[in-house]
């Protein structure tokens, strides 16, 4: 029982990070029909910029407390990623907006390689230790379940950001414009919506979320590295597809479900299959679930509800 609870907590924490990243994929897909494969690498840039900013602050203003340092580092990284997201959209994707679908997709993969290589040149090949500003020492276990302060922060921050994004899309003028653009950007522009601005805003918001996710990811595992964006990017993309790509609530649900399936799958697959399968099938387990969901619900768990997508 303890083990099951622990696995559930593990899954929720991982899942909420996946969900946060998946939102970036799903927002861009909802509006442009483009899988932005560079999204995972924006997360990486976010983590490394934050690392750089925090190291600078710690050297020059050591008297600044832990939390202000972290917030300042996070702020710098969010701003840098927003600029980066805008630049990527402006230079790489905008010109290809009316090109065949394959062209922007391949451009996205190219941008991903470009970001990784630039990061490798700037920050080197080594793994960097990410400063532990929020403790990773577990608090007093409740019912035998160990949870660390940084994991609690991750759960809370993800929840707040997700609710914030849903409110933004559904309740604000910008959100309305985003939904209109998602539905039909030609008609939206005829109605006076500056679609270029809205699409840029989508990239900027998605990149900001990626920066936050990157900082949380690095704080949790204590590492930052130029290739770190690949795995979470891939998992979050899977989560977005699982939930129904283009659908905000779907991305969140998909992220949480994927996290739980992975965690519980890895923990119990051996017992469930009577020792026939083992934890080397951890990822396969997640993809089997994805396969089953897509067979019965080709548009994902929640489907792509056009009115809601953004």
């Amino acid at each position, binding site marked *: 029982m303890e*083990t099951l609870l*622990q696995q559930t907590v593990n899954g929720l924490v991982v899942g909420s990070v996946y969900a946060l990243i998946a939102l970036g994929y799903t927002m861009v897909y909802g509006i442009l029909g483009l899988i932005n494969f560079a999204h995972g690498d924006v997360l990486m840039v976010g983590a490394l910029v934050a690392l750089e900013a925090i190291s600078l602050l710690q050297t020059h203003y050591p008297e600044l407390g832990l939390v202000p340092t972290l917030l300042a580092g996070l702020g710098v990284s969010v701003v840098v990623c927003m600029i980066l997201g805008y630049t990527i959209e402006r230079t790489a994707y905008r010109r290809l907006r009316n090109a065949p679908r394959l062209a922007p997709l391949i451009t996205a993969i190219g941008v991903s390689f470009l970001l990784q290589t630039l990061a490798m040149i700037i920050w080197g090949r080594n793994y960097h230790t990410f400063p532990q500003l929020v403790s990773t020492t577990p608090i007093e276990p409740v019912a035998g379940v160990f949870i*660390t302060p940084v994991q609690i922060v991750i759960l809370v921050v993800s929840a707040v950001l997700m609710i914030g994004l849903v409110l933004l899309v559904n309740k604000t003028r910008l959100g309305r414009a985003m939904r209109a653009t998602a539905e039909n950007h030609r008609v939206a522009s005829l109605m006076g919506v500056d679609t270029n601005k809205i699409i840029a805003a989508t990239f900027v918001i998605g990149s900001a979320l990626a920066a936050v996710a990157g900082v949380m990811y690095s704080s949790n*595992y204590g*590492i930052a590295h130029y290739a770190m964006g690949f795995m979470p990017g891939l998992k979050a993309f899977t989560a977005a597809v699982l939930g129904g790509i283009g659908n905000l609530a779907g991305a969140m649900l998909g992220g949480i479900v994927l996290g739980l399936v992975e965690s519980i799958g890895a*923990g119990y697959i*051996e017992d469930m299959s009577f020792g026939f399968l083992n*934890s080397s099938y*951890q990822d396969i387990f997640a993809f089997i679930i994805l396969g089953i969901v897509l067979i019965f619900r080709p548009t994902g768990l929640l489907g792509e509800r056009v009115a809601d997508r953004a």
Partner: protein
Amino acid sequence: MKITLVALAVLGLGASAVQAQEVVKLGTAAPLTGTQSHLGKDIENGVRLAVEEYNAKGVTLGGKKVKFEVMAEDDAADPKTATTVAQRLVDAGVKGVVGHLNSGASIPASRIYNEGGVPQVSPASTNPRLTQQNFKSTFRTIANDVQQGLGIGKYAATTLGKKVAIIDDRTAYGQGLADEVEKAVKASGGTVVTREFTSDKATDFLAILTRIKGKTPDVIVYSGMDTQGGPMLKQIKQLGIGAKFITGDGGCTGEIIKLAGDAIGPNAYCTQPGLPLDKMPGGKDFNARFKKRFNADVQIYAPYAYDAASAIIEAMKAANSSDPAKYAPAIGKVNFPGVIGTVAFDAKGDIKDGAVTVYQFKGGKWEPVQ
């Protein structure tokens, strides 16, 4: 007109004087990008240092002065890429290869080197299969996993505790080593309570560690690389697991200490084929030269790469030729004092006398215990 002819003749002479210095290309292949690139660069630098030092001393083969050049290729720690770069090295006419890092890359690449007639000396691949393929010119300067796995398994089961959990990263190296550990644990009277698996790209091990926690092992054996060992140690602490931790050479680095932060303690052990750098006969001096040339610390494999390159060049000197067909048989016969100790190979191509040292984390660094 005459003057022009003389000038041409002089130019011609000049050109032939340059040609008298023959260029011999040595290949090196290791991951120079990706999560293990720091170890790959370590290998490349080891080879560069050896080549630069031999060039400075001057080597004459078959009456011609030769200049060695390094051609470094990135295999991205990937078996498929490894075969591509192996073919590229063979096509570029390299006379010998030092590489690869990962057993999973070395083994498929070794077939291509063998078919292309290029001798290969791996400084880091420890999977036993590499030298069991009956290839005439496949060698390694590092002890193999049969020796190391025996060392880890025996030490874990007899000194650290009877109940052992094993995690491997499903690479040829991780899996091969873990198999040997499992055998050795059972042979030493211990039990393997569970065997778990991850991938060489994962950073989250909470799920498998939670499962391991439920089996209450005395010791967790991790068979994989340092960059994952660090976060793994963190997560062991995060889950409040009190078991001891031991890992093989892939995790026996300064990097794992840096990455684990406050989560590493005297409960952590690791093993290393061969001797510690400062106990290697040429270790201290090598470290100083390496630092001076590259302004970087030796990670693990640089001395092995240096000696691998030296073995190739020494064999060329013994055969007085850089033609692989002529000098390859001489690699098996080399016997010279290298950085890591005496460099000599057995009939299979494994280094003779591959020792294994156990280290414990003490006072901020790995200290040999055995």
